[in-house]
């Protein structure tokens, strides 16, 4: 899924993103949550919070859990791994993962892989695949 065919969308300038905080972006009509978690590192997950059905993930607080970079949904506070999309703390609900996007920072430009969809579990050390319905709606 990665490689030469990946089409990169320019989304915004790096300076448009605040360190340790998320921002929403519209890419091909899709709502994506971008998080600048380092000077030049940006991560992208779906903006849709699977637990509330609202487009709000970018407004969560960035943090860490046992080494993983996380975001806590602002709605009901479930915690997700920003790199893998995995739900790390479902707070008693059924775990539902977030879809993730590959992000590239080139110069001052932040780019998101348009079709470079990475399903949860396929990257990172997590291993186990998450439920498909969290990614299914937007699967190419």
């Amino acid at each position, binding site marked *: 899924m990665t490689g030469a065919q990946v089409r990169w969308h320019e989304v915004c300038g790096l300076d*448009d993103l605040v360190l340790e905080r998320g921002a929403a972006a519209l890419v091909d009509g899709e*709502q994506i949550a971008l998080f600048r978690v380092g000077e030049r590192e940006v991560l992208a997950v779906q903006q849709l919070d699977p637990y509330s059905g609202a487009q709000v993930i970018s407004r969560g607080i960035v943090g860490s859990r046992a080494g993983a970079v996380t975001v806590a949904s*602002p709605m009901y506070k479930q915690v997700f791994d920003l790199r893998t999309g995995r739900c790390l703390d479902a707070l008693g609900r059924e775990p539902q993962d977030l879809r993730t996007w590959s992000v590239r920072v080139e110069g001052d430009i932040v780019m998101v892989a348009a079709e470079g969809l990475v399903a949860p579990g396929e990257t990172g050390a997590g291993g186990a695949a998450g439920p498909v319905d969290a990614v299914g709606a937007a699967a190419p």
Partner: protein
Amino acid sequence: MSALPQQLVVIGGGMVAQRLVEALRARDETGRWHVTVLAEEPRAPYDRVALTSYFSGRDPESLSLGSPDLWGDPCVTLVRGRAATALDLAARTVRTDDGTVRGYDRLVLATGSRPTVPPIVGADLPGVFVYRTIDDVAALRGWVEERSAGLDRPVRGAVIGGGLLGLEAAGALQALGTRTTVVQVGSHLMSAQIDLGGGHLLRRLITRLGVDVRVDTTTSRIRANDRGQVGRLELADGGRIDVDVVVLATGVTPRDELARAAGLAVGPRGGVVVDEACRTANPRVWAAGEVACLDGVCLGLVAPGYAMAEVVVDRLLGGSAVFPGADTATKLKLSGVDVASFGDAFARTPGALELVHSDPAAGVYKKLVLSDDARTLLGGVLVGDASAYAGLRPMVGRPLAGDPSAHLLPAGSAAAAPGGDLPDDATVCSCNNVTAGTVRAAVTDHGCTDVAAVKACTRAGTSCGSCVPLVKRLVGDELLRAGVAVSAGLCEHVALSRAQLFDAVRVTGLRTFSEIMRRHGTAVAGRGCDICKPVVASILASLDDGHVLDDERAALQDTNDHVMANLQKDGSYSVVPRIPGGEVTPEGLLAIGQVALDFGLYTKITGGQRIDLFGARLEQLPDIWRRLVDAGFESGHAYGKSLRTVKSCVGSTWCRYGVQDAVALAVRLELRYRGLRSPHKLKLGVSGCARECAEARAKDVGVVATDRGWNLYVGGNGGFTPRHARLLAEDLDTESLVRTIDRFLVYYVRTADRLQRTAPWIDEVEGGLDGVRAVVLEDSLGIAADLDAAMARHVEVYEDEWKATLDDPVKLRRFASFVNAPTTADPSLAYVAERGQVRPATPTERADPAVLVAGTTLAVRS
């Protein structure tokens, strides 16, 4: 065991019956017994000991005991509102006043006592009350309130009897605004519990509360007024007291009439005679509590009654328990007057020595009674400062460590307070008979890691609560000893509690999250999380009041604080402009209404007397607020863990009954505390008279007007665990009131745990409500000036966050809906009409675009 359970009938539905059923159900695992409780009162057993607190605002429900599930247990039947009228020992039946006859295999008499009505002419006049049941107290309260409404002067009351109950009744009358006199037959108040020296001081403390005390005299007659109600007391010494209400508190009489009629033996002064197993001469009949006469005495305290209930249960289940002897320790539950008596308070033990520390200037009298070698503690009396009670009482009969006189020094200066050295078999909680060993085992064997868990596990501290400080100390010591890291830490990034972190940050002066985490965080602290980041943001806001969206601080905020609005279920926000005291001009109302119309917002009046505007999109917030700020409004902080509102009634400016200007005070308080960040949301209320229309006592800080000033209540909470606020101070003038609230709020902000509201904070903070009172009113910690300065700085640097944001283009960038399309509305938002306004569409409605009245394409009229 036989298949059919045996029938146990308990006559009486008081505290002892409750304890008996609770203990039986806890221990009778095989269901050998079915128990039927015949309660004369129309309610389940309740905490009669705490009855006085009904006056300080607790609901009757909050007096209920134990778990309500007990009465739903299939092995338990509670018959309410039915008095037992006859007992047939031969037929083994009990008849109730509805004619029902019930058989029993075993019977327990737990009928308690009735208040003794002295043979005084006029004791039956309207306006003369006893003080025993919720109904008694409700009737008394109703009478005083009714009289108060019809009089243009304070109601005058008298309590006949200056014992424990009499003083509590006097406190209750006083709390209702009554000018009260206590008439005591004996030489001093509480003469059954404390000695003359303590009594002299107690009288001064009681008088200081505004209660008159007459000792060494009796009431010879109660006269009616011209309406046939109670009007005047005539005393044997020739004195006269004009009264509108009288409470009789001259003792109790065991309710042994059923037993007498059935032929059971009664004691010389009443009470059903029982042996040390609490059994009457009839082997199938037992008696427990105040009605039981053991060794010729009936005991009018709950602790021995509980012990008897446990004995009876043990015997019913085949055990051989005997009554362990009475713990007659008592503590007066009266706000502002600390009295405790325990063990051999009158030094009746041969050779007993008395060690007395009396400081009339400081209002303290303390006496320890020691064995003839001055080593073993036998008992004591504490008046004015009973803080040593919880630690000393379990030491009765044991050698005191170190110099006994150290225990008489003022609280805090005593070298070694008991706790660590307490033997395992020492009783810590006498209400529930819990030993120090049991408390320790709750930590070591049952994995309890805090006081709340230990209370739930052992029941220690769940009745009168006087032992909670000791339980807390034991639990802390035991956790320390077990090497258990006390889980006060916030999260994996911060091992400190919020209060500790607050102090640390205050002392080190660090002002950025990264610095704070480097210095005070754990090894993995770097990034923080949604727990510790908002805490740090809140602490920083309290310490130097920078803008919530300044620099790095913005990233620490929860979305509500980040965009200064309240996130709703569909991802839109609601907006609440401040309306101080709920007072709004017609122009203001029109302005809010016009904003709502122009932006298509749903409007609703909040519980805090303001207007909530729902359905605002992120990118609309600055536009909405520009309009509101231009119309003179400012942030209402509805989104923050901060001061929300000061609710008020209309007060004396318009109301026929108001005695003070509640609105003016509410506005002043709201403008003073607006923007104050705190561990949880804070709400205040101000009522202009005792009718309390502002429901101030449901607030963290409630102010209720009196004809002499303001009464200040603290610790009220709505929410998940509703609590009524408790009285902190009475009849304050406005300046003292504001100063006291200043200190209370800053003390809370600095020392409470994350998301700990004021009521649990008061329960947990050192010394409880009395401790808070000592800190804010008497400056016992010497920090009052610091607290005052902190609030003064808050008031000085306050600025409207929304106005400041509108003036700052950098901050405004945070309100972009999309980083690459800043003004494009979230296309997923959808609304339908309901009762003339919009609301978010349900998933079903979204599937059918025909029903949508407003998507994000709704045109904004402006």
